[in-house]
């Protein structure tokens, strides 16, 4: 039951592929702190999809240059803000540009470079941690509430094309409620995407992350929540089903069955899955997509689970949310009218309640 992406159209572009990307993700870009002025100015320079990556690189470079200038002048706070803005634009440059090898690899590298350069100076503090994992270590960004603890932990799980850097930008509501936050790059995600391909059994990544934090005095790994959006919603379900240390989980606009979505996904999304699953062809990607399925899994999620869904999601139909909520014994279902993928355009209608819900489940605070 696919919703026409044009239903939530807010920005116009003559190129159909660019238009489709805007229809699906424009709200996400704005929520992800892409300035509206950057969005419109960059779009003005884009004639067709092949311009997407290079033009976002150009936009990122503006912020990067401002960052360099601020850095040279000793204005560290401004430099941090500018380099993070550059990282966000570099993410846009690379995240769906899978057919533009240069934009993709350069954009990913520059995103990490700009982000990590100012890592020691971020407020609230962010620590980059390495997570032991077979074949290649995973990576995470960790933030802990100020003094005290041990704090319960929320893992923010990226989806197909988001990364720990983009997800960690949303750490504030959890920290304010007294929860530590770990944004994870697992197999096929962000900087790990060149080292490990997507895995359907994402619980192995979550387990590794919990293990890696188990010795810390400031984190209580007996109280662990998961918050996953898009394909991260699938990952959250999968991990909750098989990792008993997970106390509660939130799945936002995740698929029950990725293959059931496949034929109606935009080309850029299928291309991204092809890229991050290390598939050599569309056919191989399609076969790998079959493994991302919660049949026989959702009913094993015994922890409290909130399933959130935007009724106008053009990627994942509401039937996926319904199937998860119906089969998971302790699932609460919240659907939001007029909301697109990830409920990005109307986050305020669910996020505060869900964050409080998570805080209560993990024994954190809501006041």
């Amino acid at each position, binding site marked *: 039951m696919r919703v026409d992406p044009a239903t939530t159209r807010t920005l116009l572009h003559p190129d159909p592929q660019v238009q489709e990307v805007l229809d699906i993700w424009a709200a996400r870009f704005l929520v992800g702190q892409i300035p509206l002025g950057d969005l419109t100015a960059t779009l003005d320079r884009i004639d067709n999809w092949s311009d997407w990556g290079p033009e976002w690189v150009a936009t990122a470079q503006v912020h990067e240059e401002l960052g360099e200038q601020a850095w040279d002048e000793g204005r560290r706070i401004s430099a941090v803000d500018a380099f993070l803005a550059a990282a966000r634009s570099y993410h846009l440059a690379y995240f769906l540009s899978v057919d533009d090898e240069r934009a993709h690899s350069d954009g990913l590298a520059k995103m990490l470079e700009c982000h990590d350069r100012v890592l020691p100076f971020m407020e609230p503090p962010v620590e980059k941690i390495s997570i032991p994992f077979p074949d290649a270590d995973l990576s995470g960004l960790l933030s802990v509430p100020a003094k005290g603890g041990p704090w319960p932990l929320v893992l923010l799980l990226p989806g197909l094309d988001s990364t720990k850097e983009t997800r960690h930008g949303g750490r504030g509501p959890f920290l304010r409620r007294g929860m530590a936050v770990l944004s994870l790059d697992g197999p096929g995600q962000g900087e790990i995407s060149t080292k490990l391909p997507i895995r359907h059994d994402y619980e192995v990544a979550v387990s590794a992350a919990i293990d890696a934090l188990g010795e810390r005095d400031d984190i209580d790994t007996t109280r662990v929540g998961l918050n996953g959006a898009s394909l991260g919603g699938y990952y959250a379900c999968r991990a909750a089903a098989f990792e008993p240390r997970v106390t509660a989980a939130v799945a936002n606009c995740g698929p029950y069955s990725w293959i059931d979505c496949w034929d109606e996904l935009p080309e850029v999304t299928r291309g991204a899955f092809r890229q991050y699953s290390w598939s050599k062809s569309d056919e191989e990607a399609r076969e790998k997509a079959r493994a991302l399925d919660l049949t026989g899994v959702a009913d094993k999620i015994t922890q409290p*689970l909130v399933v959130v869904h935007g009724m106008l999601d053009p990627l994942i139909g509401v*039937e996926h949310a319904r199937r998860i909520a119906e089969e998971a014994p302790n699932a609460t279902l919240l659907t939001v009218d007029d909301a697109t993928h990830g409920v990005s355009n109307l986050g305020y209608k669910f996020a505060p309640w869900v964050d409080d819900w998570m805080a209560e489940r993990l024994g954190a605070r809501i006041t």
Partner: protein
Amino acid sequence: MTLELAFAPSEDPFVIVHGGFYRRWFSMIDEISELEAAVARLEGTTQDKWVPVWEEVGRRYEAEGDRLEEAGDFEGSRGAYLQAKTYYAIGRFPGEVSDVKKRISDDCARAYRKACAHLEPPMEVVEFEHQGKTIRAHFRAPRTEAPVPAVLIMCGADVFKEDRGWAQDMCIDNGMAALVMDGPGTGENPFPWAPESVSAWEAAVDYLAGRPEVDGEHVGAFGISRGGYSVMQLAGTAPEKLKAVVANAGHPFGYVMGDEELEEFVRVRNERATWRFGAPDDPPSFPSTSVEEERAEFSRWALSEQGILENITMPVLMLNGKHDHLAPIGNIYFMLETGPVTGKEARVYSDAGHCAFKYFDHWAPGTFRWLAEKLGTVTDGEP
């Protein structure tokens, strides 16, 4: 009031749990200990043993209300009268099936009128005619210069309009007028519980839309339990009259239960049918049923069978607990995947039962904000 109680879908009046018999009144009771004490005194459910227990609590609160009223503490008296009303309402359950029940129902209505005596803006008891019969309802509107959107608050099988004053209050708080009306076959609605009685609801919308305080182009509806069904039936029958609807725990919309689920549904209904709330020699207060009867009822009542499902294209908010033993949650899932996806919202709470009263504090304020948004009010939270 958020209660720290266990959860168990149940119709046993001797047990106080979320999802159980007293769920209907939890949000209206100030002190759970008062309820627990009354339940502990119960020696039976037939009216000779049931009514006096609740009447005693109601009288006590009503006397307290009278005392506060006399002292000029109108806020205090309203609170006490509302408590009296609620305990009388429990005594009336499931309805005015005898003279004894009628008397405590009158007590309930009196206590509620007392509670509303000093309301600002005032509550007006109104009457309107339909097919030669008179329907009595409660109307309230914010004091504004221009007409405002309005909500028809539709009651169910065993909760009358006096117990939906909170919904009317929330409408006022969100800048909307509200008409609260008993469901067909209950209270002061003389129409029988029959599919055709949807015309009484239509008449109510017409009355509401015709009030000078109301913007008749922006009317919505809200219903719980049987009222949750009625609101959807009205939306499908007269879609041009409603701009948004909220259905809590409605059934049947069109979801077809599997054999096992239907058998369990029948078992639960028959378990409820063992309770007697009328005179000792009266039959059980709820009819027993069978799989065959439920299938026949589905054919008679389901929106899909009535051919009105496709008319429901206005914004719809559906609420319920996942473990509803009286209105299967499949109804909401069915509606989410039927017809246009635009305009549909759902809240299905995992550890809650019929009507999700355990999460009243979440869904109730959110519901009326949602209605205000869909009906086009702009409110600063002040009446």
